[in-house]
């Protein structure tokens, strides 16, 4: 495995007096798509905000490769209607970019021809693509998305994830995203991290979906929905899955609970 782009080791984050995250260890390497799932208030956004540097860890260490470029797509961005802003101008914030670069980024994000529109006039799907284009401007090593498809309908979010996949192939960047849409996201991820203040379990989508910690959080109902998409795999690789699962648990022990022992 190549050297991680960014790594957290036993990281704790406090928000006020509240512990939002504790003992979180994870690393990201080039080209992988990692999804963070977890119930509301489980610290998903806190985790992303720590990775982009908006929050400082109160314990543990965050290391990243020198000159790491991060592209960040925030959770649905509210732009005040009193702020006039064209898509083109938005892309030049805070660093001015040339027309060529802006055009290219819009193309890569599937948002051509929106250049002269007002940000407040865009549809939900268009808006998210413009946010994606903005994140692609500096040719990021890591793309971080915080519930990027919130408010999109199912075909809309499926399209958006297909776009992310194309971007990943084109740029070879790592992708870390938070999502609520378990089935879509899990089908598109290499690795899933299930978060609830700490990392409950992590691994390949099938592994996580069958982990008891995951079921405890999301219920077996969600697993049923997932099975709809994944049933062939779980049938043929039942045995493997069990192995994976055990293996993964050993991992989990050292990663997330290492400090307690």
């Amino acid at each position: 495995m190549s050297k991680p782009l960014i790594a957290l080791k036993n990281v704790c984050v406090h928000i006020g007096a509240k512990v939002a995250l504790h003992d979180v260890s994870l690393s990201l390497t080039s080209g992988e798509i990692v999804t963070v799932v977890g119930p509301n208030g489980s610290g998903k956004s806190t985790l992303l905000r720590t990775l982009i540097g908006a929050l400082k860890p109160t314990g543990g260490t965050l290391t990243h490769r020198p000159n790491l470029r991060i592209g960040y797509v925030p959770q649905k961005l509210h732009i005040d209607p009193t702020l006039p802003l064209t898509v083109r101008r938005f892309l030049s914030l805070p660093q001015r970019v040339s027309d060529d670069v802006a055009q290219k980024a819009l193309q890569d994000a599937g948002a051509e021809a929106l250049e002269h529109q007002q940000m407040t006039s865009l549809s939900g799907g268009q808006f998210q693509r413009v946010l994606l284009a903005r994140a692609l401007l500096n040719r990021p090593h890591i793309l971080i998305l915080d519930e990027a498809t919130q408010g999109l309908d199912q075909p809309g979010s499926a399209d958006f994830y297909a776009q992310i996949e194309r971007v990943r192939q084109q740029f070879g960047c790592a992708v870390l995203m938070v999502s609520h849409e378990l089935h879509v996201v899990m089908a598109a991820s290499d690795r899933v991290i299930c978060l609830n203040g700490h990392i409950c379990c992590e691994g390949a989508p099938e592994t996580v979906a069958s982990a008891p910690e995951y079921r405890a959080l999301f219920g077996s109902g969600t697993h049923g929905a997932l099975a709809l998409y994944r049933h062939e795999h779980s049938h043929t690789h039942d045995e493997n899955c069990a192995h994976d699962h055990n293996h993964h648990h050993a991992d989990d022990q050292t990663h997330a609970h290492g400090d307690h022992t």
Partner: protein
Amino acid sequence: MSLLDDFMVRAVLAGLGVVLAAAPLGCFVVWRRMAYFGDATAHASILGVALALAFNLSIFGGVLSVALIMALTVSSLGGRGYAMDTLLGVMAHSSLAFGIVAVSLIDSVRIDLMAYLFGDILAVGRMDLLVIWMGAAAVLILLIARWSALLTATLNPDLASAAGISPKQEQLILSLALAVVVAVAIKVVGVLLIAAMLLIPAAAARPFARTPERMAAIAVGIGIVSVGGGIQLAFQFDTPTGPTIVCVCAVLFCAASLSELIRKNT
């Protein structure tokens, strides 16, 4: 006899100085929904007038320090789960009340309270003019230098953090700029109407702008017309100048909103 000997010329220049700084800053006040914040800072500054008179300091210095303290207090309270509008309302009006009471207790000097509440642009002296233009220039330079960062932080704090911009620092810069604008504008429009000079030109400019820069420029233009027209009308009809300037500004705002309404419906 130089041009500056004419009190009308000094009045116009003072108004222009204030508008040049207040209109672009006002855009941020509108975008960030800080209208009440501006109000609170402005109202608190009457306390600065009282302190300056009591300790024989310059009015500018007194107002600037109180406005700065108020702006910093309010911005540090922001985002801590307080009901901001209630809190700001309490602070704005209580500091105004305390300020007026404090001014009235200082009986060593006879002062015209109205001049501080509504401004006295016709009494602007050369020294005042210098202070106004230096303050306005400082604010304008600060805004232009930090424009992109301020705008990004205004859009979304996390987006700013991801780009290596500290949203807290940008908030601080705006607070500082606000305090300076309040301190230089007190002579021109008075504490009660400073917020109007921040908000109304920016709000009137909104329908005509497609980019933030354009909105700031149009706001300055509307401010300039208001100052010119206001002083002219006040002279003609013998009305208080500061409020007349704000009236012209408000009429322009109505015209702008109306034209937008018509444009949308046709």
